[in-house]
């Protein structure tokens, strides 16, 4: 986990006349579990996406552990995001889906398999590993989605947090 700060962050989409996020100041402590609640369209998802690097704030700064991440690409920010729509790669098996971030981090094939199996056991989806996302039920897909971020923790000193929009 890590400490997150939003410092006077604003974002307005070109097609809208009202700001999606308007001068947001937010401090989230290390290990804190925070829930953003609000009516649809109030900027919850946009704020999370800016943290992940999928949107760029017009104004203000976002800091993780005291360091500004605004200039970093999503892949360099070490943030895990659980998508509302599951975001499973449809052309890969469940095993490959889970393995994808591990592969990018260049773990050895043995390491990768070990982690995949451990996470699959944790969530009880071991039997689903060879299947494609299209063959899974909704609940199974959800479990698989949360493994994406889980698969990345153990053994690495990476900062990881989950942002999930419901």
């Amino acid at each position: 986990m890590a400490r997150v700060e939003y410092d006077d962050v604003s974002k307005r989409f070109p097609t809208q006349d009202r700001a999606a996020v308007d001068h947001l100041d937010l401090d989230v402590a290390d290990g804190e579990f925070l829930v953003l609640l609000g009516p649809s369209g109030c900027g919850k998802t946009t704020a999370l996406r800016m943290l992940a690097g999928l949107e760029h704030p017009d104004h203000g700064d976002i800091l993780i552990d005291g360091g500004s991440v605004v200039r970093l690409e999503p892949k360099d920010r070490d943030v895990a995001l659980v998508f509302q729509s599951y975001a499973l790669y449809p052309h890969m098996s469940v095993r490959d889906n889970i393995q994808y971030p591990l592969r990018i981090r260049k773990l050895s094939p043995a390491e990768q398999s070990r982690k995949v199996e451990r996470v699959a056991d944790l969530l009880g989806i071991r039997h689903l590993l060879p299947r494609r996302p299209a063959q899974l039920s909704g609940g199974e897909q959800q479990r698989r989605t949360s493994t994406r971020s889980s698969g990345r923790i153990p053994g690495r000193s990476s900062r990881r947090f989950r942002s999930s929009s419901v």
Partner: protein
Amino acid sequence: MTTRAESRAARSTAAPRGASWVETVAAHLVFGVVVLFFLVPFLWLFTSAFDADAVAYIRVPAKPTLDNFVRIFTEHDFGRALVNSVFVAGSTMVLDVVAVSLAGYSLSRLDLRFKSWIMYAVLLLQTMPLSATMVPIYGLARALGLRNSYVGLILIHAAIELPFLIWLMKNFFDNVPRYLEEAAWLDGRSKLRALVEVVLPVARNGIGVVAGLSFLAAWAEVLMMIILIDSQDLKTVPLAFYETLRTQGGYTEVQYGLVAAMGVLYAVPVMAIFLATRRMMVRGLVASSRGL
């Protein structure tokens, strides 16, 4: 017991009455005529190719022979023409797939203020007939030293098809949800690799259509070929057809047998490709029409 209003409503929303047998027969007749219309030239093609004294109408060869096929390879260097055509069309296909993937992806994902203007401009470019642009293209090719070279042929063919294919691919990419590549970015992939590993596989029907169309366009292209090459080494199949014209004593004679033989060998790869990619192309073309 149902009221009058209810039964009327039920009748209007009921499934349409099945076609009468007259309609079915009539429909099949029309289809039959259309199919025949398209198949007849192939009938001529396949009968005349094996006929030593082929003529311009369909008739069963008196003495079926493979002589035509032999002659086109020995006398008219058809082998080279075939290889050239395959090489040029194949390279055009590869170049187009790469260029169109990048351009289509950018147009789909980037938030540009004048995006719709750009899209319409791209589409407008496609409406330019080749006969209007062939003179400037020739001048350009000559200035750049692209005449009589594979590079020139491939580049120009790729460029001709580009506007429409970019527009097509952009629509395909629009149908791939963004969260897939975003998930890949968060997993740690660079944008280019995410495109290749995650987005393209999902859009592969579109790629199939682009590949098929660009290959076929280059395969069938005659006009640019005539303009750009006069070297024997580079000739492609459409040009080889012209060479079968035999001029003797002041009048030009068409050697139908040779033409038909070349035609058979020319058409067969196309049929093979279609059969192989049929499913992908149908899915792709249906999907693209839905997007319009």
